[in-house]
């Protein structure tokens, strides 16, 4: 079954958790919650704008986590935090991971902590019961890829393209080869992210990997003022495309269920 992980900037609007629930209703397998950072180095204009909007609203890590705690009873799918190193290390990764876990978050993606810098954070995450999901890029060499596959938890995030986040006209040509290479070195699901903009592109990515992360395409709609209902429809479109792929290629590859990201 192809996984669909839509992304949502924490605190982007006052009612932001309604989008989270809408994603869930539309069939998301997990949701990535962006903890906005002032200097999001790997993000293109849309996510930058989404982060800025949230920060200008005055949200903090605390306020976002509190919002999540408030809707906790309604959330049945895993939540994954996505943020940058400085927020993680501010009070130490141990404290940070415990705070995430306390709010019901079970995964963490930190794009500016490559595997070489991940040691202490890995330990902290493990201790707190958080999966530290590592990223691989098209330029990652085989030995590094193997190490990333080995050390990642939950899934491996395949960065589809040599670029920042942001919508694109087509799935990057680098996406499928990277997913293929990753699948050779890891048993973990391989989710493809960065620039997947349409259900068609999601389907194409899902054919190469085990699922997708959708971010800028959704955040653009939120920034434009689309409602949670609108986003539900949007995510449902991606869901349908992935389900279609599942039908095409019944059980392309068996892999162990890990950490419950696909309930």
């Amino acid at each position, binding site marked *: 079954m192809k996984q669909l992980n839509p992304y949502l900037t924490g605190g982007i609007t006052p009612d932001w958790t309604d989008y989270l629930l809408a994603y869930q209703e539309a069939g998301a397998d997990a949701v990535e919650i962006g903890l906005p*950072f*002032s*200097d*999001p*180095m*790997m*993000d*293109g204009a849309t996510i*930058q704008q989404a982060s*800025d909007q949230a*920060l200008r609203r005055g949200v*903090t*890590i605390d306020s976002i986590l509190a919002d999540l705690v408030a809707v906790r009873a309604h959330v049945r799918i895993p939540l994954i935090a996505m943020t*940058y*190193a*400085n*927020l*993680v*290390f*501010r009070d130490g990764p141990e404290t940070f991971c415990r705070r995430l876990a306390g709010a019901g978050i079970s995964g963490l993606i930190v*794009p*500016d*902590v*490559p*595997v*070489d*810098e991940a040691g202490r954070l890995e330990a902290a995450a493990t201790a707190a019961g958080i999966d530290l999901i*590592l*990223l*691989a*890029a*098209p*330029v*990652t*060499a085989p030995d*590094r890829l193997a190490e*990333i596959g080995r050390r990642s938890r939950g899934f491996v995030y395949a*960065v589809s393209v*040599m*670029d*920042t986040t942001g919508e694109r006209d087509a799935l990057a040509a680098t996406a499928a080869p990277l997913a293929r290479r990753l699948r050779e070195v890891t048993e973990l699901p391989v989710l493809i992210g960065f620039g997947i903009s349409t259900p068609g592109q999601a389907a194409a990515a899902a054919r190469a990997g085990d699922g997708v992360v959708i971010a800028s395409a959704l955040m653009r709609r939120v920034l434009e003022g689309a409602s949670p209902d609108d986003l539900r429809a949007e995510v449902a479109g991606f869901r349908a495309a992935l389900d279609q792929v599942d039908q095409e290629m019944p059980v392309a590859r068996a892999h162990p269920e890990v950490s419950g990201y696909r309930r």
Partner: protein
Amino acid sequence: MGSPTEAGRFGEFGGRYVPESLVPACAALEAAFRQAWADPAFHQQLSRLRTEYAGRPTALTPALNLSADLGVTLLLKREDLAHTGSHKINNVLGQALLAQRMGKTRLIAETGAGQHGVATATAAALFGMRATVYMGERDIERQRLNVFRMELLGAEVIPVTSGSRTLKDATNEAMRAWVAAVDDAHFCLGSVGGPHPYPWLVRELQRVIGEEARAQTPTVPDVVVACVGGGSNAAGTFAGFVDTDARLIGVEAAGGAAMTNGSPGVVHGYRSMVLQDADGQVLEAESIAAGLDYPGIGPEHAHLGTTGRAEYRTVDDAEVLAAVVRLARSEGIICALESAHAVAWVLRAAGTPDLPTGSTVLLTLSGRGDKDMAALAGEIR
């Protein structure tokens, strides 16, 4: 000031906090640097460029009038006389040579005051490369002369409209652009920040300031002082004196004093002292000097400061403006607003226990002030 650890650390600072997409490029640069630095042919090329092209060694000027006024012996290391008007050319010539060795055809750079951008545009012209320079909109407005210079040199200057529209955001944009162009492009980083090996590489390329100054001073000065934005001119200067008992003083802008007012954090690929809030959101710096208007500081400075080998001070905008005028009228030298921070500290400290009467002070004048005339227009008379 030796090499960092293999992981690029100076004590607890430094490292390589970059997206996986950039890790191979950083590693390749590190390898190229290690190889080049061990290659006499590289040093010969670099030395030739420095001498024949950039006008090195730069002069060491005794500031006779100010010295007499202040009761200290003040010696100015004249990076303002280097080609393009600041120490930034030292770094860029070395990086361009490395980029050439690595087969790159393009330089990407961030710039604040525009001096690093001009130096990069200059090296790109000389080496037949393309240059793309990211510059905050606010800095474009206040350093217009340097924007013209970059464009005349054939560089593309891309205005950055996000965040504080200054150096911090220009650096974000440059790194983003590098991700998308990492095959052809070398990221020509302008100071001793960024992911390993930049802080080390840039310091080694700026070491020439300190080594020349050491050779030019008859005896080791009591105090060695330089302004600190990212900290490259200071690092290069300190490198010549770290093994002496000279006191090393870095002067930060009061509104961008990462060492003085910051706390440990990770931005722009490295761990160092950062101006940030309780969550880790990076604060906007605020300085009249675009080149110091930055909330971070190079990791080696954080290390030198933490271990006490170097000390860091701050001066405010008003002191800086007064220092530009005082130096101009005393010595006939119009320095950059950035460099004037070091001067301002000497003016304030001379005769106090921080800089006792009779001290000998080596001060690196990192650049010239032509670019700042608009900002200074209000100060005249």
